[in-house]
């Protein structure tokens, strides 16, 4: 039963072209983050050789496929070593955001009255704050390198949209006859919530999770781009920042150092967006072609 439904969902995703593209790219990124650092370990160079820095892509060895950075290390090596951090932070932040939004929405919608009023007040308050500016100041003042803590900071404001949507859905469903019937049957609150109220929301929650992951990358890479967190040479955001500084000095040589991190970040974000779009196309009959 369970595996059959997974198989069915998967074949639905596979049929949508954007979703298939997104899924394949994300799997490729996960593989890269898992095996990349083992195959191409990062060896810091203390004294860079002037003839080795900012070289264009070369056919051999593999670490030089994308050219070299300003310490003479291969750009591919930088990118695969920076990948685990970006993936960890973005997945964790997306997960936290979704879980908080889900919990707040369900509690507010189901309990109603004062709890609902207080939770919605907090939601509206956070909606008024430009989340990126808030996240930037908190992350800088706390100054953390721990992916878990950073993901926690990134998920402070992102959950409000999901919370509102879940709340209104719960409010709409909770007085329907079939929920009343479930109550009369003596089924527990937990059972009613997870078996009766939430399942119709699942596609929406999945889409929200993916979009939250996307939003987390925007902020996480952006923090390194601005140079506000203690960075390493292989953090993707920091690489773009370095490339710009070098571009001002060296001109054309730095172009590969700028283009490849930009390409890897953009592809990851576009893939997430396309996956979300594909899932929406599947669950929303009005978009189906």
């Amino acid at each position: 039963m369970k595996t059959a439904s997974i198989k069915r969902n998967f074949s639905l995703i596979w049929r949508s072209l954007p979703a298939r593209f997104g899924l394949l790219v994300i799997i490729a990124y996960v593989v890269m983050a898992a095996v990349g650092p083992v195959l191409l370990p990062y060896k810091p160079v203390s004294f860079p050789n002037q003839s080795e820095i900012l070289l264009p892509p070369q056919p051999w060895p593999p670490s030089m496929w994308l050219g070299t950075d300003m310490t003479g290390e291969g750009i591919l090596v930088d990118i695969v070593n920076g990948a685990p951090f970006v993936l960890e932070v973005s997945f964790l932040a997306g997960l936290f955001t979704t879980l908080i939004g889900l919990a707040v929405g369900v509690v507010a919608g189901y309990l109603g009255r004062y709890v609902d009023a207080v939770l919605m007040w907090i939601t509206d308050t956070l909606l008024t704050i430009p989340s990126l500016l808030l996240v930037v100041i908190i992350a800088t003042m706390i100054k953390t390198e721990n992916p878990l803590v950073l993901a926690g900071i990134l998920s402070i404001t992102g959950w409000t949209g999901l919370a509102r949507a879940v709340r209104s859905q719960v409010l709409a469903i909770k007085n329907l006859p079939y929920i009343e019937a479930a109550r009369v049957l003596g089924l527990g609150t937990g059972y009613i919530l997870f078996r009766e109220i939430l399942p119709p929301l699942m596609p929406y929650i999945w889409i929200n999770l993916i979009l939250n992951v996307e939003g987390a990358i925007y902020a996480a890479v952006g923090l390194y781009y601005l140079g506000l967190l203690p960075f390493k040479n292989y953090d993707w955001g920091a690489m773009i920042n370095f490339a710009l500084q070098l571009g001002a000095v060296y001109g054309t040589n730095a172009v590969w150092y700028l283009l490849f991190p930009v390409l890897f970040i953009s592809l990851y974000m576009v893939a997430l967006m396309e996956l979300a779009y594909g899932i929406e196309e599947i669950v929303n009959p009005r978009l189906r072609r």
Partner: protein
Amino acid sequence: MNWKYLARRIGIAISTIFFVLLLTYILFEYSPLKPIDYLLNQLGLVPTQGGGLVASRGSLLSGTLSQQQYEQIVAYLETFLPHGNPVINVLKYIYNILRGNWGISLIYIEPVTLLIGSALPWTLFVVATANILNFFIGVYLGQLMAYNRGKKLDQVLTQFITVKRAIPVYIYAALFLMFFGFYLRIVPTSGAYGVNVTPGLNLPFILSVLHHAAMPIFTLFFATFGGWALAMRGNVISQLGEDYVTYAEARGLPSSYIRSRYVGRNAILPLYTSLIISIGFSFAGSVFVEQTFAYPGVGSLYVSSLTNSDWLLAMGILFIIVVAIAVGMIVADLTYSLIDPRVRVG
């Protein structure tokens, strides 16, 4: 006018402002980063791995400081900061902020209000221009897409906007700076106006300002472009199904008249509130753009204050932006009833 709704909005605006003040103050009080490090750095002392300090080249002080000596200096300097009950301190801070005393910046040694006041016009110029351009072009494109829905043009534009919107603003900023600034050298890479013009109402100055602002405005415009088009497209499509459109067509009105006077007006209305809100929120994108193009607005001031642990300046900037958005939202709600008569009655 729905007074209960308005009262709630104002209440939320006030709670937002106090939440931001409280949160930043708590961070300020307990942050592991000390503004003192910046001062010591100015004296030529660089923190080492172990926690002590080393004199950098050309420093006024010679030799190195141990961890113990460093802590002694920090403890001594801490005595200049207000200490005591944190609850009373935060109330004092909020009281001072409301009175207009926002503290003095550590890196610029000038009042925070003065610094923000001189940087804000540049940011407002860039943000407002980019947003307004975006709104009008988006509304036009959205209508075009809605009337051609399902056709090639609509599909290509929708797909393009979806992909374009997935990519963050700093990527565009970095690419544009690299190619237009460093390679083609057709736009300046820093500053708000050239060094050889005198600020004032003269032609060279205005041209220089426009030349310097062109790239930041274009970047912000390009990065946020598309949202309005998609929203407008959806609104127009849903309006087209309404009975009044069928009736207008049956009366034999020219279709261009129906589009601009009937459908267009009704489709734009819901976008009005989000226009004011989105101008407030694009301050965040402006941070990346200003930092990349070294544009002297509030955004690059925010980044430089954060890099140097100049907390009072950073808190002031966050505060002013949050106040602007909160007030903007109330203004949007109040004025919406002016442009949409249905709200006034209902």
